[in-house]
């Protein structure tokens, strides 16, 4: 069953088009990275999925319309919007008590054991905690909820690298169990490359690329071409070409890996390089032609 299904998802703010008829389908049990430049419509798409904003078009999340059924949907969906949404006046113990009081799928013992691994004290108020500790607290609350969909919108924004690494480690080790779906948006794409099962690029309100990480490995090849083969490589129509330390690096979509290996060193591109290639004007023309 699809966890999220959207057809012709559209949202405008005055003259600005945030979502321009986006179509997407996210299966259950996937970890999807939703990647896009600033203002591409990532947060708007997530807000529509979470029932925080009205939209045009069709959208079903776990079989429900998020805009009209937000409160019921939130029994099965969790989200961390960004690190600064925990109310600053609340005490850690109060936050745990409150979520236990209103959420049917919250496991208090689990939350306590997650908190026990941190240095967060129960009597502290959120305003007294460091940014990283607030993120840990929010994650501990969310991971103790037996939800079917977890949405993370820039969850590690402003955190140092230790916290960021720890954040994704606990997410993978203590939370993800293949029946849950996780959607992450972030600008630190390299850090989540190994976490994801699926990848989606969004630009100007449209989904410009959607593939699994397995497909990414089989479809895209990055070639560091030998100088004498540059012309031959260019003839194979790369998506993008760039120069690093005097060597040409070409990125190919659906070109035989064996054939390319004869022209230089091949490897699977990083999400960041692929992103740049797809977002460049040439890459977009190719994407639109598909």
């Amino acid at each position, binding site marked *: 069953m699809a966890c999220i299904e959207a057809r012709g998802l559209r949202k405008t703010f005055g003259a600005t088009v945030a979502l321009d008829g986006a179509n997407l389908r996210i299966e259950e049990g996937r970890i999807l990275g939703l990647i896009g430049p600033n203002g591409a419509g990532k947060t708007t798409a997530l*807000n529509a999925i*979470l*029932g*925080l*904003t*009205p939209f045009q078009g069709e959208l079903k999340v776990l079989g429900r319309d998020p805009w009209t059924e*937000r*409160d*019921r*949907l*939130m*029994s099965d969906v*969790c*989200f*961390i*919007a960004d690190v*600064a*949404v*925990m*109310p*600053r*006046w*609340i*005490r850690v113990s*109060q936050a745990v*008590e*409150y*979520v236990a*009081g*209103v*959420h*049917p*799928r919250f496991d208090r013992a689990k939350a306590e054991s997650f908190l026990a691994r941190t240095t967060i004290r129960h009597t502290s108020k959120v305003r007294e905690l460091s940014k990283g500790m607030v993120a840990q607290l*929010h994650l501990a609350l969310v991971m103790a909820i037996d939800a079917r969909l977890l949405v993370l919108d820039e969850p590690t924004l402003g955190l140092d690298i230790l916290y960021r690494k720890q954040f994704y480690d606990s997410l993978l080790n203590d939370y993800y169990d293949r029946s849950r779906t996780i959607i992450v948006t972030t600008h630190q794409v390299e850090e989540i490359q190994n976490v994801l099962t699926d990848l989606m690029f969004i630009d100007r309100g449209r989904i410009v690329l959607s593939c699994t990480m397995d497909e990414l490995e089989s479809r895209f090849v990055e070639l560091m071409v030998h100088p004498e083969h540059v012309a031959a490589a260019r003839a194979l129509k790369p998506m993008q070409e760039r120069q690093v330390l005097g060597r040409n690096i070409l990125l190919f979509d659906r070109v035989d890996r064996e054939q390319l290996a004869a022209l230089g060193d091949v490897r699977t591109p990083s999400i960041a390089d692929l992103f740049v290639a797809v977002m460049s004007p040439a890459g977009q023309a190719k994407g639109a032609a598909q």
Partner: protein
Amino acid sequence: MNTQSNVLSESLESQAIPPVISPSQRVYWSMRRELWENRSIYIAPLSAVALVLFGFLISVLGLPHKMRSLPALDPEHQRRAILAPYEFAAGMIMVTTLIVGVFYALDALYGERRDRSILFWKSLPVSDLTTVLTKASIPILILPLLTVALIVATQFIMLVLSTVILMGAGLSAATLWSQVSFFQMSLLLFYHLGTVHILWHAPIYCWFLLVSGWARRATFLWAVLPPLAICFVEKIAFNTSHFASLLVRRMTGGPEAMPLPGRLPMDPGMHLTPGNFLVSPGLWLGLIVAAGLLAAAVRLRRYRGPI
């Protein structure tokens, strides 16, 4: 095979008993959250009680002297002299909770947008209806009930203190007890709070709540200036002040809720006229307006995110 069937039975088990949270539980926890966040709801009235009692403690030392000089006055003035501190205490506590209620309502749906915590609250399975109704019930229901309880307790303590002082001075407390008819006073107080502070003032708080859910800044100005503007325009355009008198009646309680103008609501000489109050169109129109404002506030909260 074995592990598979285990997994299957486990998942069946967890599906068979869906964890349920009743709506009343959600209301209860939403209420707890309001009290955690806005401790002024009880701290301010309790401070008012402490101040009143502190002042009374000093003045009560002069009570024996006052009681000795009473027989020189006519009965009406005797009554006034004895009751004055009790009425003043009630008034102080009421004014405090009114102010707390107004500022609470103006911040209720604004604060959570300003500090972005609305995203946290909305990530939990609590409906906008539950949230808004809980927030509305604080100034409309909880504060008036708290006010009654605190005033009754304060007046009782004052009465006991006075009795102790009078007996210590070798005087009888009989005059005091006959003038301060404690149960009647409490009943009148309860009636006043129920009619004026709860039913009559409800649309005012609902208006404040709506403004707090709508305004991007300066909720107090948005709540107060538009009604004033209507008054000014009416005065300039038609040289009338119907809207102004409507507002004044709404704030002071109106003739329906205060049958004897010039008398304090706890005055034992007052006659309760619940019949008149319940048939007054102002009451029902006000409640309809309150319901409409609340419905708008619920709808608004669905659309609103952080500022």
